[in-house]
């Protein structure tokens, strides 16, 4: 007699745990039942993300880098799971290497994006980047793992926390990534992942007054993108618009996705005896 496999249930990832949607709904996708997030799940995810900001942004850059590197170690260990979900070898390789690349930025971005300013007077003057807080992210639909890594890692490496709306049609890689993060010493609430219909949850995330920024990387519908950006304007979120054309997620990301979610603080102090 052949052995019956134990099937995985795909739930949301909020506050470091895996709850079902409070609505109790799920949808069938990629031959699995996946939680269908509601506006209340968005609300709860934002609460978890906000609660995690103080601790995560207060961790040393070195520590954040180590935690992200550990996530890469865990990702490497789960290659087969991602391949089984339909990811290509080269995409999985690229995703792991991309994660390592970002891990190494945590204690360098301040040196590249901050500086002393030679003001015309006897003052100490230093500009330093600080994380903006809670970032809402719409993950790319066409690249379930590499695209996802490319929008999550740059936001959190600098100390932000994120609420991610996973790719609607291919959400399993996102929840598997959540399992990686849950075993990487990443504090609960730093990354929160909601699976479901972006058109339903997007507006609630975009209009949420306790979210500081929005990355619309995964919105392909021009009208939806415009309306989300408009809703975001209510509390002047920093918005990254969807890409103009098709994206090659394997190319060099640059530092734009990190700096988009950094505030620059400039401190003055007089110099004198």
């Amino acid at each position, binding site marked *: 007699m052949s052995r019956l496999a134990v099937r995985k249930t795909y739930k949301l990832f909020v506050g470091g745990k895996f709850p079902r949607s409070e609505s109790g709904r799920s949808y069938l996708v990629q031959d699995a039942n996946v939680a269908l997030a509601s506006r209340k799940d968005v609300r709860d995810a934002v609460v978890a993300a906000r609660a995690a900001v103080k601790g995560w942004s207060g961790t040393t*850059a*070195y520590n954040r*880098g*180590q935690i992200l*590197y550990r996530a890469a170690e865990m990702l490497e260990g789960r290659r087969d799971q991602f391949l089984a979900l339909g990811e290509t070898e080269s995409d999985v390789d690229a995703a792991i*290497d991309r994660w*390592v*690349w970002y*891990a*190494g*930025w*945590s*204690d*360098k971005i301040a*040196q*590249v994006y901050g500086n002393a300013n030679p003001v015309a007077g*006897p003052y*100490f003057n230093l500009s330093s980047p600080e994380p903006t807080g809670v970032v809402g992210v719409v993950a790319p639909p066409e690249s379930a793992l590499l695209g996802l890594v490319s929008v999550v890692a740059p936001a959190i490496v600098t100390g932000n926390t994120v609420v991610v709306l996973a790719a609607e049609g291919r959400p399993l890689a996102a929840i598997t990534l959540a399992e990686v993060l849950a075993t990487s010493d990443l504090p609960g609430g730093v990354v929160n992942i909601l699976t479901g219909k972006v058109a339903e949850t997007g507006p609630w995330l975009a209009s949420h007054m306790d979210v500081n920024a929005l990355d619309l990387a995964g919105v392909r519908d021009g009208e939806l993108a415009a309306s989300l950006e408009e809703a975001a304007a209510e509390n002047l979120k920093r918005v990254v618009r969807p890409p103009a054309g098709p994206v090659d997620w394997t190319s060099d990301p640059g*530092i734009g996705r990190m700096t988009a979610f950094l505030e620059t603080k400039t401190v003055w*102090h*007089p*110099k*004198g*005896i």
Partner: protein
Amino acid sequence: MFEYAPAPESRSIVDIKPSYGLFVNGEWVDGEVRNKTVNPANEEVLAEVAWAAESEVDSAVRAARTAYETVWSKMPGRERAKYLFRIARIIQERGRELAVLESLDNGKPIRESRDVDVPLVAAHFFYYAGWADKLGYAGYGADPKPIGVAGQVIPWNFPLLMLAWKIAPALACGNTVVLKPAETTPLTALVFAEICQEAELPPGVVNIVTGAGETGHALVSHEGVDKVAFTGSTDVGRAIARAVAGTRKKVTLELGGKAANIVFEDAPIDQAVEGIVNGIFFNQGHVCCAGSRLLIQESVYDEVLASLKRRMAQLRVGDPLDKNTDIGAINSAAQLERIRTLSEIGAEEGASRWSPPCELPERGFWFAPTIFTGVTQAHRIAREEIFGPVLSVLTFRTPAEAVEKANNTPYGLSAGVWTDKGSRILWMADRLRAGVVWANTFNKFDPTSPFGGYKESGYGREGGRHGLEAYLDV
């Protein structure tokens, strides 16, 4: 009486081989000339190591050249990064072993090697690993190139840490290295070679040639070396600078210091005293950036001195492997002789010598923490680097006078400022001619923070984004 009882860290975690060869091209090679390395705390022989001859240095440089041209400079940055991340991880995993070994070979207290040296070593590799694939963002051009083969000579005071400061940035930038550790402290470098093997680092990328002055000379003058990096005494640094004159070799030097640690009248005294003690007695004072000249504002002289003496009486000198030890052994008989000689000179020059009552072990190389008061700029002990647990105490009246005295030296590595007034910190920092200024703290190091000197303390910076410059062809 609260007697703390012995609290020894176990030696059993480290497995010292009776004899080591040279690490060339990824393999262990027997050396012709052999010498012993001892534990300075009890003069026990730890192991026998090779002292590389010129021909052996030559093989190492050739191996580094081949590895550079055929493997390392061709490898994409993100792959180099992953080797360095592996090395960082292995160092963390073998951390306790490395700390115990460092204390045995160097004489420094286990608390320092365990809590300061080894964690910083891992952090340096971690930090520079992350630069390997981001060099275009470092401010040195869109696609900066490595230099080639680096010949690196390091001192005995922080053996593994100095190795990390040299090897991590060099490899991250795409160079290959031949490194010579100090003759009295070769062991952690040799275990590092084992770690390179564990990490499967391609052969020839890192080569370790143990030896003394002659080995070092052969290395830095070798024609196949494109870049020389040296940390050590100003005298030797000067000789190296002369030797590379007229060649293509790039060179960076991190040399001696005689740092001023300046305490103003509004400094919180207990904190300042903690900083003074850390500044000169940490690592037995074997620190190039040690705060070896204490400048106290006259109005608080008596108070600071009384507090300092009371604090010094709490310092525990003894077995480096005891977890309660604050001050360990002097690294070698030669260094102990130098410290004794200069201390005698200090007394002859008219300064007043004081040490807390201290029971020193019979065997081994030991020196009690010592202060000299009544010192002025004209004294030799105010000008020459003693490199031991000896503090020269001077006074000053105004901030301007403090600056003048602090800068009145051929050295310029570091300085300390103790005051509660923010504007004064920044005013002083602007005027002190030193590569590192510590305000209300001392002896703080971080892989992201550039370190290096002005004037005869050397040139070039190690650490941070600035630390990449030494290893790029810019």
